[in-house]
């Protein structure tokens, strides 16, 4: 016996649904139904299992969330922690709030894209794939049941006809109808597009005339005197502004007069004393600041094994231990914090002098715990 390909064509979705039910009632299995649009309930009527693609999408979303968590942890915490705006930077959890936008976006990204890839893969859809529908009318207004049938099909054919099939075929038919209309754009639309572009593009003119044509009492408007900070041939230094008097300081600034030299370092080491007493409160503040500004290189114990050292981003960070740095005092620590030393940069712009003294207290505390 040879196999037959039976196509029942319907011209209405409701009639098709009734037909599907009638055929199934008689015990025939439908191999495929081709429709121009999704028909609700057709999958159930045909006995198709529900799709599990939404579960797949959930799994992809979870993957995206985990991936984003790992990405932010690895780059911002583990591999290269950075002090950004003086915020804690050593644990992922403390930084997580700033990472939520990234975590959300990557969750959506993975859930959406991987689901669509799965959809294409499961449906075998890809560019260049041949059209899968046997009859081109099934993307227009025809609905088709397909049977691959062995044996006598007269009963099936009659069921199809009774349930309202407009055609029952064993062969494929090709039919294309062309219908062409003219593409018209009314003139008013063109004028309005013009209006749109001119309205938005001319909202600011190229060279606006800012100065009025006449000025009342121009001497009052245009200063005869030199502007501050402008060049002034008669000025003391050839400029209008004068250099501030010696020992002028900006507001709130505490001067530090020991110079950034080897002698200066020695002077700080020998004689510089902290203006603030060591208390639990100052130690706590010093530890807090240390754990933001110093920890990435010097490490939480002050052993010079911060993450950046462990990851070999920077090398040569010494331990505070007396065996490695036998000769440091709070004065020399403050000096180094202020000016930096070797690879280390100045922290004077990030920490006030009060804060630097508190950090120095914490460094000494760490040093006493190291061997």
């Amino acid at each position: 016996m040879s196999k037959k390909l039976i196509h029942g064509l319907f011209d209405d979705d409701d009639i098709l649904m009734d037909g599907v039910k009638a055929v199934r009632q008689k015990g025939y299995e439908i191999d495929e139904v081709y429709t121009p649009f999704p028909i609700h309930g057709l999958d159930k009527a045909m006995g198709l299992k529900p799709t599990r693609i939404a579960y797949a999408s959930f799994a992809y979303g979870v993957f995206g969330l985990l991936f984003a968590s790992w990405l932010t942890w690895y780059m911002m915490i583990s591999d290269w922690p950075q002090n950004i705006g003086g915020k804690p930077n050593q644990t992922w959890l403390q930084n997580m709030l700033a990472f939520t936008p990234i975590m959300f976006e990557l969750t959506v990204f993975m859930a959406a894209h991987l689901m669509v890839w799965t959809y294409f893969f499961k449906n075998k859809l890809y560019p260049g794939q041949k059209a899968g529908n046997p009859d081109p009318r099934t993307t227009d207004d025809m609905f088709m049941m397909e049977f691959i049938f062995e044996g006598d099909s007269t009963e099936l054919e009659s069921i199809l006809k009774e349930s309202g099939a407009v055609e029952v075929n064993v062969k494929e038919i090709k039919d294309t109808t062309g219908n062409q209309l003219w593409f018209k754009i009314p003139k008013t639309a063109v004028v309005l597009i013009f209006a749109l572009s001119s309205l938005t593009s001319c909202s600011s003119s190229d060279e606006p005339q800012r100065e009025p044509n006449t000025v009342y009492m121009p001497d009052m408007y245009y200063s005869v005197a030199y502007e501050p900070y402008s060049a002034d041939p008669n000025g003391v230094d050839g400029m209008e502004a004068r250099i501030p008097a010696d020992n002028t300081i900006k507001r709130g600034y505490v001067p530090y007069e020991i110079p950034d030299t080897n002698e200066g370092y020695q002077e700080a080491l020998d004689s510089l004393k902290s203006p603030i007493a060591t208390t639990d409160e100052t130690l706590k503040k010093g530890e807090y600041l240390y754990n933001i500004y110093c920890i990435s290189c010097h490490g939480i114990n002050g052993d010079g094994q911060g993450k950046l050292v462990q990851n070999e981003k920077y090398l040569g960070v010494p331990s505070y231990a007396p065996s490695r740095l036998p000769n440091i005092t709070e004065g020399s620590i403050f000096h180094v914090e202020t000016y930096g030393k070797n690879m280390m940069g100045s922290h004077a712009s990030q920490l006030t002098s009060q804060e630097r003294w508190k950090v120095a207290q914490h460094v000494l505390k760490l040093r006493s715990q190291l061997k």
Partner: protein
Amino acid sequence: MHYESDIREPLILGDKSYGDITRDVAAPVEGKANKMWWFVFSLALIAFLWGIGVMAYTVGTGIGTWGLNKTVGWAWDITNFVWWVGIGHAGTLISAVLLLFRQKWRMSINRSAEAMTIFAVVQAALFPLLHMGRPWLAYWVFPFPNNFGSLWVNFNSPLLWDVFAISTYFSVSTVFWYVGLIPDFAMIRDRAVKPFQKHIYKIMSFGWSGKAKHWQRFEEVSLVLAGLATPLVLSVHTIVSMDFATSVIPGWHTTIFPPYFVAGAIFSGFAMVQTLLIIMRKVVSLESYITIQHIEMMNIVIMLTGSIVGVAYITELFMAWYSGVEYEQYAFLNRATGPYWWAYLSMMTFNVVSPQLMWFKKLRTSIMFTFVLSIIVNTGMWFERFVIIVTSLHRDYLPSSWSMFSPTYVDIGIFVGTIGFFFVLFLLYARTFPVIAQAELKTILKSSGENQKKLHKHE
């Protein structure tokens, strides 16, 4: 099976069958463009080419060609960026949020609205790219293993969040759009007579067959994508607003920004959809599908979001006064009465006053009025971004550095160029893509078609 209350207006007018929908949607693709299309297309192309010219000049010479100065370091570029991204919000909102709410009226407008979204985001993306100055290094914004000491991007920065938000939004919107397009490309493929056309649409339609299992997956994928795209679309403008809100400039540093920006984005996005669809429905004879009712629905959304934006403006003023912060108070006083008072006044009139006219049914069902208003709204929304950005920056804490911003021809040229590029893309789309999601539309013909509704009435 397909009953719906008579009180609901039909969404498909006239005596349409499934075949009629197919023919009406395929007509603009199968027909030929007339002189008018070529005329408008040429205009858009000229604007686009001019845009390319000034963009090349910007890249070659540097962004010193723009009108920026020491005080106003962000101006038209970011204004245009936010404007375009905002416009790009309506598409996904229509296709995702309205799908979740089962609003049938989205079906005849979602395709074009999404196309508009994607084309608008393309324009938006050009501005940060150009502002980088060295666009060929744009890939540095992505976290990839590198030899610059393996230095990573800064995940704490709102600007990087923006990179992730916009690229996720753009790619997910495109995929959502394309998944819906596949069955409609298949329809055009199956009707195509010329071999070249047939071949192109065969590639584009990925071999779609319309099998029951495929449709089942199609519907599930659409639903899940809608569920994913809904928070996504809200997140994008939230994150855009954080570019401003996380900085400490008076006038920017405010928690109202995320909801306020999202409402504004939907507001301008719907206005752009109106602008485009009112022309398109006429040009490609789709008045039966994009009806007055659709226009009215969108006008109601415009009215609602316009009112939210209005409330936000007034809340900002109130908060400036209530905060007691002198600088915040001055920032808002300066906005309203300073040298940029005209921009503030335009923003207030166009965005707050004009949408209130939509309370009148006669006006919101008038096509001409809607069209004019949609353009007014988008102009107003451009001014909103300009006001927020330039007036907050141009008078900083140091009066000696106060300055004004005036755009150069390069600033204007890039903006006009993106408008041209946008219309080039949209006009090409309207000639080659099925502009209505016809497969989806066919599912509501029986419940919301005019002839079907009449039929049930007489039963």
